[in-house]
């Protein structure tokens, strides 16, 4: 657990090290905002996962959305 948390933090520092200076130099603010959004959300979710807390599964939500249609398809195919 601790190992993965440290690992995630190291990877994050590495990614910032590689990408951010170039972005600032070229003054690509929109890219920087997008980059930060994905990185911060990714790191937070990654850390939650590393603490072995169960993450919600997006496929469960999609299943709920599509359940009327998939039931209907099941009926047709049977």
């Amino acid at each position, binding site marked *: 657990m601790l190992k993965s948390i440290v690992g995630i933090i190291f*990877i994050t520092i590495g990614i910032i090290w590689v990408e951010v200076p170039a972005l600032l130099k070229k003054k690509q603010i929109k*890219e920087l905002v997008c980059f930060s959004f994905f990185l911060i959300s990714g790191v937070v979710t990654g850390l939650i996962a590393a603490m072995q807390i169960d993450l919600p599964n997006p496929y469960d939500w999609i299943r709920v959305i599509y359940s009327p249609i998939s039931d209907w398809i099941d009926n047709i*195919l049977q």
Partner: protein
Amino acid sequence: MKQIQKINARQMTIFVIFYFIGSTILITPATLAAGGKQDAWISAIIGVIVSLFFVWFYTSIAKLNPEKNFIEYLEIVLGKWVGKFVSMLYILFFILSAAGSVWIIGDFMTTQVMPATPAVVFHIAFTMVVIFGVRWGIEVLARSAEIFFFWFIVLLLFFILFLLADIKVENITPIFENGFHPIVQASLYFISISGVTMFTFLLILPSARNAQSIRKTMMIGTFFGGMVLVVITFLCISVLGPTLTEYNVYPTYALAKKVNLGNFLERIEVIIAGIFMVTIFIKTTLYFYAIMISLAQTFRLKDYRPLVFPVGMWIVILSLVIYPSSVYAENWNSNVWIPFVFTFGFVFPIIVWGIGKWKARKRKEVRN
């Protein structure tokens, strides 16, 4: 975003072949055999024919506006805000699909090849390769695909030649025992995973150097890839038999274990596994590239490369979350995946195509 890096027709064909074979080569023989039993190879043929129709449809969308990618076209056709909303749904779809492909590699490696290693290692290692592929751009990817293609063909020919002696005709007879219905039903999953996902090429086609011949390129690639899948399914059924094919999670790999040349050349299945490593790699990378193109288009970014690492991180996380177990995966794939992919690969494209055609006609009327 302008797609500056260009690839030629041969490279595009190789992309189409690899993408079409994708993860299908690994899992569909089992699904086809579950429905079609000994006629699974006929289901595969039906699947390829229907997929060709889908590809024909996608190229006619691409031909409406050859320089613009599909996400750009969405915004033109549906208006700015509806278009952006649908683009976000597409981004979500691509991220989930890429994560699904990574999961397949992880599951395959942990259940078949290296059971003692945790799956997350394979997920991270595989995603790293994909990340570098996408960061270097489509041109580099196309050239590496060309190099892979030679080995792919060599391995595939070896695979087929070594197994020819093991074909048992009694495994594929009687043909049409259960009638036509289950055969068509079984081909539906094949179409959903190979044919309908071909719409990803609507985002990659603007990188093609010669826009005139895209239909020919795509059709040839799909046909060739489809033939490979038909042959593999046929070999699975005729060598392993329908029951073993159905109950193996990865029948193609089980088939590779059968390769035995005079009790001397055997256990070469991991080398054969190189075939599906390459095809799944290309499929995942093209999904990833599609995410990048869509993101850059939706948020008007000049360069997608800074986003590759964070999105790659998301793919690793999602690949660990979306399928808690293989049972869940099988259940989800057979129930939800088909309507899910048809929404993106059929419903939205047909709406966009219809409105696009109508607008083009209206423009012509105004001009006259």
